[in-house]
């Protein structure tokens, strides 16, 4: 199993370690619910070393990014970030990623750990012209600090002013004395930052952050709460909510698909889906009290299976059972009553607005 440079630190914090797509990672330290609420109310620290960092540089970098992702990287300013699906020509999703634009000749692509090899091979197969493509994942550390107290805690450790960094923008600067990419991004639905740095500084950075945040209630957060946090915010999990068998239009990620930038991988199929409609669409639902909906459970209407749950959980901040799943568009209107089949029994679920949770903006 792959280990992160912070493995010993997680064990010291009492992390319960599991195998997450080949990575030895903490699923929780104290309690998933407690960790979840810590991020909603104070701040949490996440070790995300397992994520993949690819660099695309050279005179033709922009042209290649424009072809492989659905977002418009030309419309990004330098030091701006886009969340984007990456599609095949048939519109199916290879992965979802973050595109960091330094300038038109330098991009960082941050991909899911479980897809690293698939993504690298896919991107390599698509590249044209004068461009250099490298995988720096093994050398790159990634720590996220998320929650309403995140900015105040991080500000103690850097002279770089954080306030002016807008959501989905980044800068570079020292945190303690470690060179970092400081990015106002995250996967929790809260305010917060993600720091990319040379992996050998992992312990120093982690310990400095923990120390700086101790009076504000900063705690380490495992993968369990990372999943419940992202689901409350309706952030996609690749392999669950989006996959090789879904498109961004089906997943209701239309806002990430920029048709006016010209042709790109999947643009023909996606345009057709947008104009003529889809056969399945991703909806959010809530269940009455009872068991939780989980990945793979059937979605039923009038006794017939109409779809499947892609993600589901008891939502700790909302204190109710929520989920996402694909249904035919005719059953996607807000207020539609569906059934979720759980261990042979049907439980009513109502299609509701997403995201399930939105942070109060200051």
């Amino acid at each position, binding site marked *: 199993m792959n280990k992160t440079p912070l493995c010993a630190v997680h064990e010291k914090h009492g992390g319960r370690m599991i195998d997450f797509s080949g990575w030895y990672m903490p699923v*929780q330290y104290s309690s998933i619910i407690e960790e979840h609420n810590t991020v909603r109310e104070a701040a949490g620290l996440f070790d995300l070393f397992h994520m993949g960092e690819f660099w695309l540089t050279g005179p033709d970098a922009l042209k290649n990014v424009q072809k492989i992702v659905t977002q418009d990287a030309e419309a990004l300013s330098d030091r701006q970030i886009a969340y984007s699906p990456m599609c095949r020509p048939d519109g199916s999703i290879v992965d979802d990623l973050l595109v960091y634009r330094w300038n038109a000749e330098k991009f960082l692509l941050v991909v899911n750990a479980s897809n690293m090899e698939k993504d690298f091979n896919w991107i390599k197969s698509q590249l044209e012209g004068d461009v250099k493509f490298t995988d720096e994942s093994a050398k790159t550390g990634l720590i996220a600090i998320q929650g309403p107290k995140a900015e105040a805690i991080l500000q103690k450790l850097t002279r770089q002013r954080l306030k002016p960094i807008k959501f989905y923008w980044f800068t570079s600067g020292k945190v303690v004395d470690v060179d970092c990419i400081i990015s106002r991004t995250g996967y929790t639905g809260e305010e917060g930052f993600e720091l990319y740095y040379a992996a050998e500084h992992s312990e120093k950075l982690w310990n400095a952050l923990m120390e700086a945040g101790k009076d504000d209630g900063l705690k380490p957060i495992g993968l*369990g709460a990372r999943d419940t946090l992202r689901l409350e915010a309706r952030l996609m999990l690749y392999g669950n909510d989006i996959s090789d068998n879904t498109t961004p239009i089906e997943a209701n990620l239309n806002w990430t698909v920029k048709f006016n930038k010209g042709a790109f991988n999947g643009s023909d199929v996606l345009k057709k889906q947008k104009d003529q409609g889809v056969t399945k669409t991703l909806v959010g639902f809530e269940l009455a009290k*009872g*068991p939780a909906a*989980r990945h793979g459970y059937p979605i039923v209407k009038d006794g017939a299976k109409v779809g499947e749950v892609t993600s589901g*959980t*008891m939502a700790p901040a909302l204190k109710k059972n929520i989920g996402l799943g694909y249904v035919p568009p005719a059953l996607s209107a807000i207020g539609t009553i569906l059934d979720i089949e759980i261990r042979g029994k049907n439980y009513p679920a109502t299609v509701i607005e997403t995201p399930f949770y939105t942070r109060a903006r200051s």
Partner: protein
Amino acid sequence: MKFTKEHEWAKLEGGIVTVGITDYAAHQLGDVVFVELPAVGSKVTMGATFGTIESVKTVSDMYAPVGGEVVGVNEDLESNPALVNESPLDAGWIVKIKVADAKEFDQLLSEDDYKKICE
């Protein structure tokens, strides 16, 4: 108190066996968010599933330590499933079974034997 290798405890008092999950199991599961209880009056068989316990991340079956009739369920778990974590051996009990054959209870594991399983 006796135990099963499926990490339940069972306590026999006056022909009624109270059943819960062990401290070890509660810790392993993490935050319990739902307990599916059997109907009072239903019959259970030793070793067969009688309910389900869900944590945030997992779904686990619960197995009857003894056969008999369900004569009580812990209704507090419906509104507060976290009782299983807070007090697995006491306030977080799950069902009471009127034991059909007391010999089944005798076959369960002693505390020492159960502890060996958890090591």
